[in-house]
């Protein structure tokens, strides 16, 4: 029996989730929205509420408003020419679901997206209406991530930004030609224009110190990797450009999963390791002071046998080993195996005493890779021969990958800086 006025049916929820789940964006961080009476607030560090058997976190209620699409993007299972069950939810259904899930602490907020139902303007209007409803009628102040619909009216885009915490337009494919081939109704311009519009409007909003919110958690985007022939070098150059020009908070990389059959699409799933390497490189760009030119040439892929920092270090052996007691933070961050957390620990501890290898071990700095690239108090415990270092590192990687791919180590203290959440 059901007493709530517009509780969504299980079947509809299933259909609308099934088509939303391939969007990999999951973060709920970056917004400090306050509770102003009613329910919910933002948690700047973000928060994971559950984990599914595929190892991904459930942070937001990730759902489509509708999967009934007029577009025909080849890689998408909601495309017009695909025979799948269709459903469209009402704004009330989405709002009730969000508030009741949120209240029980199942979720951190809403990730609302939609297939292009009827027309881009109609769809965007429905999305905006839902979020506005959620904020004003349901008094919900939790996190809302709204997907932008390409080719929707400018005014609708601005209005959406007043209510959402984060918005994203998916670049989808790393080049205009692939986009033309696989997503004929989308174009680079239809995706980049609203991103730039939002960026400049956000800057004006902040400069004028106006009341309320305008995308407090900024914008993100997503690219599918492995559905088209672009190399990692090209993909990362695009990502770096997006970080610098459109001020994106994050670029997500999504390994291509074949959900539909088409002659222009590969039939095999793109390897998870490639996606993993792209994320590692992305982290190096944003938090470790690397430039894409240092990591990989435009026409090449990242090496699979080493992580990108290791690969860089092996190409630049003349810079190593560095002395942990004297090296500046920027250099410590470039040592393979030393991350933001370990670097901070070293900086802190060495103010009081000269560090030895025993100290580093005690501080739980992982030395498996790092020992080949550092000295502690002048002592070196690694292998001098570059070739054997190479072999040792590759062997260690192979072992790790065989065990399990764990993207991030657990922890929260540095979660924001390392962008973990």
């Amino acid at each position, binding site marked *: 029996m059901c007493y709530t006025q517009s509780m969504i049916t299980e079947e509809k929820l299933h259909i609308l989730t099934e088509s939303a789940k391939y969007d990999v964006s999951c973060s709920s961080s970056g917004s400090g929205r306050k509770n102003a009476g009613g329910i919910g607030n933002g948690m700047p560090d973000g928060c994971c509420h559950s984990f599914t058997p*595929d190892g991904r976190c459930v942070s937001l209620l990730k759902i489509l408003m509708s999967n009934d699409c007029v577009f025909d993007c080849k890689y998408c299972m909601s495309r017009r020419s695909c025979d799948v069950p*269709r459903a469209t939810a009402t704004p009330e259904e989405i709002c009730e679901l969000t508030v009741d899930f949120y209240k029980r602490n199942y979720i951190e907020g809403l990730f609302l997206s939609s297939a292009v139902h009827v027309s881009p303007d109609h769809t965007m209007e429905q999305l905006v209406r839902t979020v506005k409803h959620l904020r004003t009628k349901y008094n919900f102040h939790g996190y809302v991530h709204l997907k932008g619909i390409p080719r929707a009216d400018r005014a609708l885009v601005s209005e959406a930004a007043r209510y959402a915490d984060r918005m994203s337009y998916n670049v989808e494919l790393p080049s205009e030609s692939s986009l033309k081939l696989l997503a004929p109704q989308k174009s680079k311009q239809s995706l980049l224009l609203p991103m730039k519009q939002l960026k400049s409007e956000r800057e004006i909003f902040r400069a004028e110190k106006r009341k309320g919110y305008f995308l407090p958690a900024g914008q993100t985007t997503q690219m599918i990797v492995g559905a088209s022939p672009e190399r990692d070098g090209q993909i990362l150059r695009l990502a770096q450009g997006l970080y610098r020009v459109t001020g994106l908070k994050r670029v997500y990389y999504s390994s291509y999963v074949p959900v539909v059959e088409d002659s222009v699409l590969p039939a095999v799933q793109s390897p998870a390791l490639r996606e993993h390497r792209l994320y590692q490189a992305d982290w190096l760009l944003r938090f470790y002071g690397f430039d894409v030119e240092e990591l990989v040439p435009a026409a090449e892929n990242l090496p699979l046998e080493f992580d990108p920092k290791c690969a860089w270090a092996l190409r630049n052996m003349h810079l190593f080993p560095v002395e942990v007691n004297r090296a500046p933070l920027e250099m410590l961050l470039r040592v393979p195996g030393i991350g933001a957390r370990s670097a901070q620990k070293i900086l802190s501890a060495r103010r009081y005493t000269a560090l030895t290898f025993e100290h580093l071990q005690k*501080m739980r700095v992982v030395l498996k890779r790092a020992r080949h690239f550092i000295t502690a108090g002048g002592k070196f415990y690694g292998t001098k021969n570059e070739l054997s270092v190479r072999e040792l590192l590759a062997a260690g990687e192979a072992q790790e990958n065989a065990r399990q791919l764990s993207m991030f180590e657990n922890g929260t203290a540095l979660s924001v800086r390392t962008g973990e959440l």
Partner: protein
Amino acid sequence: MIWFFDGSKDAFLTTFLLAYRDEHPIVSAGSHQLSLGQECVFVRADENKARRCEARLKELDKNCMRDLDLLLRSGESDAPRIAFEYFRLIAERGRPVRGMLAEDAVAKATECIRRVTFEVHRFKGFVRFLESASGALYAPISPDHDIADLLVPHFRGRIPDIPFVIHDVRRGKAAVWDGAHAFLAPLEEAEVVLSADETAWQALWKQYYRSVNIPSRERIRQMKGYMPVRYWKFMPEDPASAADRTARGASVQKSPDAAPRPPGSPRSPHGSPRP
């Protein structure tokens, strides 16, 4: 000498004052295997001594009481000893030692504190509320460390108008927010009359959890790393059976995500939804 105390802050501070000059003290809040000829002392909290000790320690490190609070919440049996060593180092050096990570005592205390605060962070996500008939929310938890009341400010911030109870069933205590006050109360067992919609929302949540999973990308080890099995007990999404189904499905039958779908006949662009 072995120093026993009841795990409270004041008893710890009293013990600290008494045991400070002991060269080889063993400080314990629980059971400790006694060997022949070992002396032991049971220390009772002494309000006077505790205040004196606290005032002196705060002079040396004004933030150290927060560290103590977190260390004493730890469920690990050697936490009191770690806390003792940490505070002894503060007293010896006469200043904050937080950054001296190369010191054994500091490294251990930092790790211990990190495990407690990390569990607090995790439970901000893993707590699951049930809605009672009165509208109040109830969440049973069984954390490793004594953190129930540390969760209250977080939830009070987001649902200030809804009373809630976070029940640590392992320690028999509950952290309560009644809409105006937050307090701790002993609570062994709780009887909750569920609201009319509660089971329906749980069913929807279960449906969502199953639907959002991608079975062809099974990574159960990673799932368990992020969300340890001991926390699954009170989660209505039932991660155990979902993991089980995914593991079986991945090897026996091809999941619908791995199998390419046959393209169907083109539909009219303005077709009505077909649920």
